[in-house]
């Protein structure tokens, strides 16, 4: 039996891992994006102690190696009385870690957003929250599409670290197959192919989304 036949026989394991990776990515990327939006809304307005603390937290998380962050959540939190399952710790870690990056990406775009459209919103009777949601945030997202797409792919690849804390996602599945049948090349090539497949799909979706910005003159070819 060739190594590839073995891989084919273990397709259930790969598929289950792939499904977990996809789910982890979708939930964490969505939650991370929402966290980033919340953070950037909280940062609206003059600097005050609360906002300085939030900036410091965002920077602190961004500057932490992801693996250590996950170790902290999974092995460190129980010492403080909070025990999360590997899956939940991994999910929360991904969402918070990438949320910090999403916040920083949006913050950069917020700094260079021409102030006129927000001022017009206030002059037309908007309150801060609604003006942010309807006027500021859509422009920020359109302006950061490319770099957001990049971050989504980083988020996808970081799911792979979760195998280290025993989450049975795609990398863990490949690792399990290779260690049982001693076929590291075949097992990991399959994993890479599946990661590429997802990355290409994300990339295509993000590229397609560029039409919204181009129609509106916010992005250019």
């Amino acid at each position: 039996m060739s190594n590839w036949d073995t891989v084919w026989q273990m397709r259930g394991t790969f598929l289950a891992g792939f499904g977990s990776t996809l789910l982890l990515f979708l939930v964490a990327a969505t939650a991370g994006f929402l966290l980033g939006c919340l953070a950037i809304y909280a940062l609206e307005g003059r600097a005050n102690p609360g906002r300085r603390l939030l900036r410091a937290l965002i920077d602190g998380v961004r500057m932490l190696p992801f693996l250590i962050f996950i170790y902290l959540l999974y092995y460190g939190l129980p010492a403080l009385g909070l025990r999360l399952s590997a899956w939940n710790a991994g999910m929360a870690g991904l969402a918070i870690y990438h949320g910090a990056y999403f916040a920083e990406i949006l913050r950069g775009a917020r700094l260079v957003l021409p102030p006129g459209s927000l001022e017009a919103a206030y002059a037309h009777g908007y309150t801060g929250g609604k003006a942010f949601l309807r006027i500021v945030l859509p422009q920020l997202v359109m302006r950061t599409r490319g770099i957001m797409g990049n971050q989504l792919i980083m988020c996808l690849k970081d799911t792979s670290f979760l195998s280290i804390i025993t989450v049975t996602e795609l990398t863990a599945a490949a690792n399990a197959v290779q260690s049982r049948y001693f076929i590291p090349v075949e097992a990991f090539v399959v994993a890479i192919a599946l990661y590429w497949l997802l990355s290409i799909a994300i990339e295509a979706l993000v590229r397609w989304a560029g039409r919204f910005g181009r129609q509106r003159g916010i992005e250019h070819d």
Partner: protein
Amino acid sequence: MTEAPAVSIRNVSKSFDGYEVLRDINLTVAKGEVVSILGSSGSGKSTLLRCVNWLEQPDRGEIHIGGARMGVDEHSGKPLRSRALAAMRARTGMVFQNFNLWPHFTVLQNVMEVPVHVRGVPKDQARQRAQALLDKVGLAEKAGQYPHTLSGGQKQRVAIARVLAMEPQVLLFDEPTSALDPERVGEVLAVMRDLSADGYTMMVVTHEMDFARAVSDKVVFLEQGKIIEQGDPETFFTRPRTDRVRKFLDREH
């Protein structure tokens, strides 16, 4: 009881970093009146207009819109909370020098946005009204386009339709034609002329002397943050009382 004036500005002063931009301004705008605010750059005209809708907050003095105090709670004397402030601001409609259209919305969406999302008007009704307003400013056929495809004059006319859609009591124009190339100035002024004929109350900061002379009921001249002359346009333009205004008018003509 007589009707409250559309805008009443009482003893308003404002400084930026110790530099006094407005000094003890008093000005009343009656309902239906068009007031042009003239003066050289840096005289405080735009700041005065931006104080009326609280985009800038005066250091001293009071502003009332249709009898209601802008920006400050009449009873407690504290700043209005965001919802109350937004409601007060919606009594005024500002047209900006740089249009400030919302680039991610179509022309029609720009005009519908405030009625639907701020005032809670049903969508169908808001759409009909928006289309009528775009028709009024001569841009009905641009409804589905995005702002970046329009000329400056067209953008400004959309901005005027957007402001009319919120049905403000007072229109504030902050140098509405200063960012336009000369060929596009006329189309915006024509729309503004129509609005004054419709009976809108308007405060217009402008450098368009012919417009100020033809359309205004009152002209106000600001110099270093003070009103140094105000009156009916005929007197102002033909028999100015101060040397400063005489000089200004000579240079503008």
